[in-house]
């Protein structure tokens, strides 16, 4: 699964790190580090973490939203 956090919005409430510690970690006192590509087995945890973010700064992909490019390299 794919995750991105808008760190401009993030205010370090650490709710995500509490709910999905394998995908979100605090770095120092208030900086968030996250796994952009956590294991699918963590999906429930990550979705719960995204829902709990007071700033709604966590975006998780919608599987039906995938639209993989079929682009080709000419070379």
């Amino acid at each position: 699964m794919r995750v991105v956090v808008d760190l401009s919005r993030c205010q370090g409430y650490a709710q995500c790190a509490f709910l999905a510690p394998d995908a979100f970690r605090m770095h120092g006192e208030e900086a968030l580090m996250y796994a952009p590509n956590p294991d699918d087995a963590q999906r429930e945890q990550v979705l719960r973490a995204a829902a709990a973010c007071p700033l709604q700064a966590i975006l998780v992909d919608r599987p039906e939203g995938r639209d993989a490019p079929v682009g080709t390299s000419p070379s």
Partner: protein
Amino acid sequence: MSSAHTLRRFRRDGRVVIVGASLAGLRAAEALRGEGFTGSLTMIGDELGEPYDRPPLSKQVLTGWVPADGTTLPRRRGIDAEWLLGVPADGLDLAADQVRLADGRRIPFDRMLIATGVRARPWPVEAEAALDGVFVVRTREDAAGLQRAIAAGPSRVLIIGAGFTGSEIASVCRERGLPVTVAELGPAPLVGGLGAMIGEVAADMQRAHGVDLRCGVKVTRLEGDAQGRLRRAHFSDGGTVDAEVAVVALGGIRNTEWLRDSGLAVGVWGVACDAGCRAFDLNGLVTDDIFVAGDVARSPNPIYEYRFISLEHWANAVEQAEIAAHNMVSTQADRWPHLSIPAFWSIQFGVNIKSVGVPTYADEVVVAQGSVSDRRFVAAYGYQGRVTAAVSFNNAKWLDHYRRLIETAAPFPPPCPTPDQPADAKPVPVDFPGPTLLAQGATVVVTGHDPGERRVTVMRQHR
């Protein structure tokens, strides 16, 4: 495309081409579909693979936590696009409404979005840049290569340039226990973006974490061995350092060359556009059908006296993409301006650095809250008596407060008493180094950060 009827038809079966398949391009595509655009959508990108996120490349990826190819951006919705990847756009024919690709194909459009971003500024001497062990960090491949090189445990890593990227990489290397030398032409790290006071804090932070920080020096030569591997770097002060890995972190170059003959207002500054992301042509006329978003855009910001500002900030790419997408499918009366206050973040040496506003748009700076020695404070920036920016070190929860001060042109120094105020909060001059010092390879630079002193200075290259 002004009549409501024409616009309705365009929204139903028009053709949109987005050049640049990264954060801004992807978010614009999603926003277009979200706005109900059902016509054809073509995404053009010079890299293969799906759009990916860059900030983790200098952080999570280099620590080894996340593989470089694991930063693909999540999707909010399907965008039903045709993807033309692995081939760059090479030209824009405004008369024919066509984008030209490097392989000769011509892609017609009704409206197009330019989101080609910036690329890493390479080491200027090609033979030295080609040495094994010399890296830039911009793409996934760059980050993967550097990650492998630092995982191998080099004897020393040299970082050339102590802006945000260089400082973040220095921080990761120290976390991994690697000896690090940072060479910075300016008087301190981060000084070009945040001024002398914060620069001094950043310098202390680097040294406290064991970085061999050398300021006011230029790397004059990278020396390799017979096998073409980096061995040593030479400095302008006569010093040298032995290093197996060098990271060139000298900022970016805006990807505008492909638009050189397009008739648009493009140059090293980016693509000039209005606050609604519509590109200007060479005459300064706004175009109807060409839009710009992200790092490559340069637009006037009414909050900063309509000065043209380009920003290489993540949130700016997202916001401009959404504004551009909305305006592409809207009538004149329903267009939105891009009015947001710039914001960025950086994580280095265990400290969360965040900023709102435009720190370079300032003549004074004051520590408004907290303590510099504890690395936990907010510095407020002011220009001619009003608040124009704020930077926090491990104190980000206050930035919304300063954002409101900026938006309401509150007086500087900030008036409202806030908790945790230092007893001796005296404004000092902001003191940015002149860009003539920091600019390498520019033909002209805008000098003077005080807006009243801004002039163009011609840079003469001595060889």
